[in-house]
């Protein structure tokens, strides 16, 4: 017994989804984390809270509201329709949007922690050595906070791969479009096809184990706080 075509399709879809979401999260999350780590603005509290919300908000609740917002009567849905993009729920892009929301804190927090741990001093030293703002970010912050960025990328990726609740709400179960590995396993269990489910679940577990291994060897304290 091995992977069926449907399985391979699900695996490919999952990897595509997780990679895309990770890249998007690093692009969106880094400036947010930078700002949160350094600002003294009154908005820091509310914005930080908004980013962290998915940590406690159940995935079905988050999924439900995203569904409403992206649906034909929701503001996002009306926007995408007027732009000629159609509706997002039950599409790959719908999954991407939902996953970005759901995995945001797992990316923002490690980067924010790393930048906060860095403190003001290396940046001040760089400024007295004639480095401008961008220069300081690229030549001081990025190399010194690299473990934080790495942790963020790995956690973001792993969470997107494992996420189930939000996917179920937004994605439905369309082969090749929204049927990710988690959903595929669920389907097999529903159909009492435990053998096939074993294969997929085992490969998912091995994958996650490798992720965990990398994380532990990187920095076990920082990663699992």
């Amino acid at each position, binding site marked *: 017994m091995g992977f069926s075509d449907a399985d391979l399709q699900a695996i490919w879809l999952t990897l595509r989804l997780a990679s895309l979401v990770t890249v998007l999260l690093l692009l969106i999350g880094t400036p947010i984390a930078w700002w949160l780590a350094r600002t003294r603005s009154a908005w820091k509290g509310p914005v930080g809270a908004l980013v962290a919300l998915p940590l406690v908000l159940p995935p079905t609740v988050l999924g439900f509201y995203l569904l409403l917002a992206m649906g034909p009567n929701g503001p996002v849905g009306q926007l995408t329709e007027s732009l000629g993009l159609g509706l997002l729920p039950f599409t790959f892009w719908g999954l991407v949007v939902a996953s970005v929301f759901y995995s945001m804190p797992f990316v923002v927090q490690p980067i924010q922690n790393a930048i906060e741990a860095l403190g003001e001093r290396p940046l001040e030293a760089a400024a007295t050595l004639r480095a401008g703002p961008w220069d300081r970010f690229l030549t001081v912050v990025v190399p*010194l906070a690299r473990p934080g960025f790495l942790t963020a990328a790995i956690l973001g990726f792993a969470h997107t791969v494992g996420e189930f609740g939000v996917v179920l709400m937004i994605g439905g179960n369309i082969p090749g479009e929204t049927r990710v590995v988690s959903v595929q396993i669920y389907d097999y269990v529903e159909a009492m096809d435990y053998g096939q489910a074993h294969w997929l679940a085992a490969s998912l577990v091995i994958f996650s184990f490798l992720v965990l291994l990398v994380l532990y060897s990187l920095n076990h304290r920082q990663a699992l706080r």
Partner: protein
Amino acid sequence: MPSQRIIARFHHTYPDFSLDVDLDLPGRGVTALFGHSGSGKTTLLRLIAGLQHTPQGFLSVNGEIWQEGARLLPTHRRPLGYVFQEASLFAHLSARGNLEYGMRRVARGKAMDRAALDQAIALLGIGHLLERRPHQLSGGERQRVAIARALALQPRLLLMDEPLAALDLARKQEILPYLERLHDELEIPVLYVSHSPDEVARLADTVVMLERGRVMAQGAVGELLTRLDLRLARAHDASAILDGRVRDHDPRYRLTRIDTPAGTLRLAQIERAPGERVWLRIQARDLSLALDEPGTSSIVNILPARVLALEPLEEAQLLVKLGAGADQATPLLAHITRYSADRLGLVEGQELFAQIKAVALME
């Protein structure tokens, strides 16, 4: 040239303290910003570096305006070098990488000034450390690299924020000679923040004393360290600093005689040549007073002096400022108890004898 000055005016109220300074400092030599912690000396240095801002202020360095009102030059455009209290080297770069970080940016794509780099490396004696990472350096070595990193930029103003405070005594002794060399060899003005009278006396030409965000006094080193109205004189380790010259050695008793403006003092033999200039420090608690010249005493240094001022200290203590020497004007300080002051019947203008229990050579 009149523009060879550093003019700094900052007035700003922070939540917990207010800064109000108006300074006109010499455009060369070492100026110490001296005060207790919380006196605002570091804040002032950071304002000069542009690491902190006040909404209003004025700053010009040797004719170049760095801040005028709310308009200011960002830190990375100011031609300065800054040495932090802890070395603040970049952990991801080697010592060489750290040195070259700023130089590349000064050169802007053109060739770096290798000569300046080599000179800074030689001045601080770090040639053998260049390939090491900061964590492979000792505290003293890190600080030397940090100083070289600032110097290699050939700044027009060097700012140093207590560069020795984080180091233990042995490391301090390791770095001080290098700082003295900077003092002797550098052409550029240096602002040096410190709370250690020893460092100030040893390194600075001019002292600015700050207290609670205000300038209490400004002037030459020897003059300021004994001024009674300044808080420093009341400190536990208050002392007078004397500028002296070695007169001769007495091999029989292994003593060295040193001429100072306060009189000739004898020290346990020191290894300095006759005629050489030395700095002596006499702590206020090492001075006792007598009305008549003591006949037989184990104390070798006894100077005639006159009481210039009496100042109550906490509880039962008094601070006495004495004038010694030919014109009875060279200041000495003594801490004595109120009890002995009453017993001696001390009043201003009284002539007496200062018995000096210990004299330290400042190294």
